[in-house]
């Protein structure tokens, strides 16, 4: 299929580019390690005062830390570079080349670039999750793993959709760098289980900016604590948000009046 071939070509192009910047890779790995340490130390410090946060034990919370790192890595690897590029293309006017190609423009604009060395964060996140699960002494069965995989996929779809909506805003406002900064601050709340947060904030983090679906719910899936409602909720949330991002993209293109030359 054409799209799979294209993903292969994009991946190859990204690898070729990154191999040129070796120093960057080393520097990035060090920065990643730093952030992972901060995440773990932060969680540890909280637990010197208490045994549970919002009903979660230390190692259970560590699973969330792992997911937070992993999803953060995915965002940095797959979403951030493309969104930056979309913003740049709208500003400079090269979006015209994307829109005149006989290919789904949203696919073309959002899958093209990857910052591959952020794979370090994804792996680090995976290691933290595995470590925490090991300490809990919990070995998930096939069904649990399947549910986890689905929840993780939905988390990715939801994050992707949020980022795409933000990037699409650049068709109107051209510069939306602040919007992604705002997302990053909200995403920070994903370090801890959503049950830590009270009242309105929890509702907002579940339904409005669904951070709960990104870290808390997948963590519950791997820990075997997933409620059916969350599972259905994730499927619905993922589908709705993706559909909205696709609709919003098409709407924006309809209104696009490219930067004049």
């Amino acid at each position, binding site marked *: 299929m*054409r799209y799979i*071939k*294209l993903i292969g*070509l*994009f991946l*190859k*192009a990204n690898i*070729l*580019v990154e191999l*040129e910047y070796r120093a960057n890779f080393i520097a990035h790995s060090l920065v990643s390690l730093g952030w992972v340490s901060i995440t773990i130390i932060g969680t540890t410090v909280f637990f010197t005062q208490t045994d549970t946060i919002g009903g979660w034990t230390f190692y259970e919370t560590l699973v969330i830390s792992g997911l937070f790192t992993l999803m953060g890595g995915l965002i940095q690897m797959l979403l951030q570079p493309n969104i930056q590029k979309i913003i740049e293309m709208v500003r*400079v*006017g*090269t979006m*015209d*080349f994307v*829109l*005149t*190609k*006989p*290919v789904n423009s949203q696919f*073309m604009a959002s899958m093209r670039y990857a910052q591959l060395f952020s794979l370090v964060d994804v792996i680090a996140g995976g290691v933290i999750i595995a470590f925490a699960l090991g300490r809990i002494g919990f070995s998930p069965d096939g069904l649990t793993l399947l549910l986890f995989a689905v929840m993780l996929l939905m988390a990715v779809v939801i994050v992707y959709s949020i980022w795409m909506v933000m990037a699409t805003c650049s068709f109107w406002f051209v510069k939306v760098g602040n919007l992604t900064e705002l997302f990053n601050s909200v995403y920070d709340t994903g370090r801890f289980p959503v049950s830590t947060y009270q009242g309105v904030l929890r509702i907002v983090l579940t339904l409005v900016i669904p951070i709960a679906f990104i870290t808390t719910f997948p963590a519950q899936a791997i820990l075997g604590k997933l409620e059916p409602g969350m599972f259905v909720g994730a499927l619905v949330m993922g589908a709705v948000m993706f559909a909205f991002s696709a609709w919003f993209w098409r709407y924006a293109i*309809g209104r*696009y*009046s*490219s930067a*004049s*030359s």
Partner: protein
Amino acid sequence: MPFAFFISMAYQIEVTHLSKHYQVHEKEPGLMGSLRSFVARKYRAVKAVDDVSFNIGQGEMVGFLGPNGAGKTTTLKVLAGLLYPTSGKATVLGFTPNKRENAYLKQFTLVMGQKQQLMWDLPAQETFLVNQAIYEIPRAQYDATIKELDDLLELGPIMKKQVRKLSLGERMKCELAAALLHRPRVLFLDEPTIGLDVTMQARIREFIAEYNRRYGATVMLTSHYMADVTALCDRIIVIDKGRLFYDGNFRALIERVAPYKIIKLQLAQPTTAEALAQFGQVESCNGLTAVLHVPRATATESAARLLSQVKVEDVTFEEPPVEDIIREVFAGIGKDEARGAR
């Protein structure tokens, strides 16, 4: 309407009463102006394209001329499906461009001299491969096209170098190649030679002409360089402030706007402008050299008279420079509009 004879033929590009209006916000100068415009923006409608109609047949090469901001790029963008017309209609190859159907997108290409589609950090051939996949070009056809483009543009060594290490001219060659891999039938070229040196401009021009000959492709070209247009296009469309000003044969326009030839004289004896005035309009005269404008119709006659009456060391006849012609065209637009000329 020079092309009215072919009305029964199917046109490849049909534009009827096309208008495109923008809302742009106006900013007053200075910090206070910026603050004011941040809080409450004033919008003003700009008529980028205003009631423009023309038709282009298959295989035609049409030069699209006009000063900056005349609406050339806007028209091309409407035809490329990037902009919706405010009113009027545009059809290319029977498609409505802004529907952006894949069947249409596969048959044209857009090249913008000031923007690039090549991936900056990689050799151009990586972009070629991406485009091959996008346009679903079969392997054999891809290889054949690359070989042909290599013959015409000498791509061989440069398509393997990183784009950022290429010169502007080399990069433009690769841009053209990337844009033509799928052998489009319609080419929209927006300033394809901008910033290139004269030799490279000529190379690109030859290439475009050759592509047009080989594939019978229809070409619409905008350029600041008159040489591009004179070399490639018999027909030109001139627009200014969004309005169509002239559509027709390039020569005919020259005859209309610049109905004179230029005679440059090297004189044997110092002469005054007054003495030369009887032969034509004296543009300059400083003793031993002079420049005259003589009416095209009587140019030979005046020249003969001049040579028999004045002692001349050397004489050259020249066409008025096209830049001057175009300048006169735009200077004359105000007057001609009053007469309702198109």
